[in-house]
């Protein structure tokens, strides 16, 4: 049985095919903006290349936030069709837990920063694979760590540009599907995480 992974929420995106939970092929793109029209096309090409029929798909894994809002909606809109037409279950993965697969042997609390727009993002604290806390923070405050309550801590991010600035360490997921996920079998339950409330949105405007 094959699985599909849609990660469309980070600055660099990936569409992957798995066989028995091991990645067999993947398409990675370095820019969400440039890849937003090609996710389904890439997925189709991967399946054609691997001679996989749609009926051979067991699960669709989709990273559903935090991350860029457009990307979250894109991944969920695509995955909904698998539930709606073929009743293939969707496995929702939290972005922090997806990125954590890229960090090995860390006993301390891991701090990961995920941008959700040009100026802000989410800071998450993970300990022993459990997501303990998340905060919506301004990017500039993460860079000036004093403002968010700690100094000189090691913060991981999947954003290369941010990582190049001080106090950030670049991480890439290792294509290991996480053990923590939420499986949904109806479209109604496929909802995005980490969206601002309507009041917050309007205040910002």
């Amino acid at each position, binding site marked *: 049985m094959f699985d599909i992974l849609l990660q469309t929420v980070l600055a660099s995106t990936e569409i992957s095919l798995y066989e028995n939970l091991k990645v067999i092929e993947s398409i990675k793109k370095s820019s969400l903006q440039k890849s937003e029209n090609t996710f389904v096309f890439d997925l189709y090409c991967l399946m054609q290349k691997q001679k996989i029929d749609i009926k051979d798909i067991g699960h669709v894994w989709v990273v559903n936030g935090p991350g860029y809002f457009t990307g979250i909606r894109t991944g969920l809109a695509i995955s*909904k069709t698998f539930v709606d037409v073929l009743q293939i279950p969707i496995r929702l993965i939290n972005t922090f837990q997806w990125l954590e697969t890229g960090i090995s042997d860390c006993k301390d609390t891991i701090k990961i920063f995920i941008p959700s727009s040009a100026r802000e993002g989410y800071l998450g604290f993970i300990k022993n694979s459990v997501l303990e806390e998340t905060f919506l923070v301004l990017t500039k405050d993460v860079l000036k760590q004093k403002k968010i309550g700690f100094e000189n801590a090691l913060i991981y991010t999947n954003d290369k540009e941010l990582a190049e600035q001080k106090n950030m360490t670049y991480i890439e997921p290792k294509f290991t599907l996480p053990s923590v996920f939420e499986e949904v079998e109806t479209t109604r339950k496929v909802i*995005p995480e980490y969206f601002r409330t309507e009041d917050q*949105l309007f205040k910002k405007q």
Partner: protein
Amino acid sequence: MNILGIETSCDDTAVAVVNSDGEILSNVLSSQTEFHAKYGGIVPEIASRKHLELISHVCFESLEKAQIKWSDIDLISVTKGPGLVGSLLVGVEYARGLSVVLKKPIKGINHMEGHLLSPLLTQKVPFPYMGLVISGGHTEFVLVEKSGKYLKVSSTVDDACGESLDKFGKQIGILYPAGPLIEKLAIEGNSKAYQFPLPKVKKDPLAMSFSGLKTSVMHVITSLSSEDLLKEKQNLCASYQYALFRHVLVTAKKVVLKYPVRALTISGGVSANMNLYKTLSDGLSVPVFKPAKKLSTDNAAMIAYAGFLRFKAEGPDSLNFEVFSNLPLASYNTV
């Protein structure tokens, strides 16, 4: 052949099923108006979230009303622009996903082309005709030589007509979308109570402009006391609506004179206004066609139908076609 149409370019989530004879099997629309009304206009981020929330439900309802199954769909047609990118992407990605899981072809459609062809769904309109698309986002005249052959001949240089109605409505305390209530109040008012100038665009005699009219009416509104404003609401609505539609009529006369056509069609949200239809019908020498109310505002039946005509002429699109917030009809003069 059954065509599934998906339209999410703005704030309405719409899915329809139309067959190759142009018969509408279902035309379902979920309006987000109440969610945006409290903000006085459409909030793009909220619109795209609602599309994501609603798309599956609207799709299932459309299939149920059409009494067909997923396997009965032969073509997927979806709006690819112009519109709000976040909203467009939800519909397009859902349509692309359907195309893969159903193994059916897909066609990306210009929203304006849908509007221009929508009168053909219910009436026999002779070619060539002049299509007026008039809504909160667009006000333009397009020469339709035949299906797929278009020439934009006039458009607004600033506000769209519907946008102008909404802005005026906001000033006199009418909630978004203001058009329907303005039309209702105008019936009880005197359209000659206030005189507003006829706009002119110096550089282009065929172009329209609505922002000057808006400024004129603002001067009148600010000169009135709140008591007088309440008393004069009907007269203001009638006079402002008259001024807007007179400008549209004068432009319509010019374009019909320059480009001889056999008919004029009106579509888009403002086309539901009966006074606009009457103004154009009485004032023009060519017959005026307007689609049924459900087809004049944004809907997916028009996208399904336009998709079918395009598919017949060009074949399917690739799965990686682009989505555009600003998609000119000029790029469609190819068929």
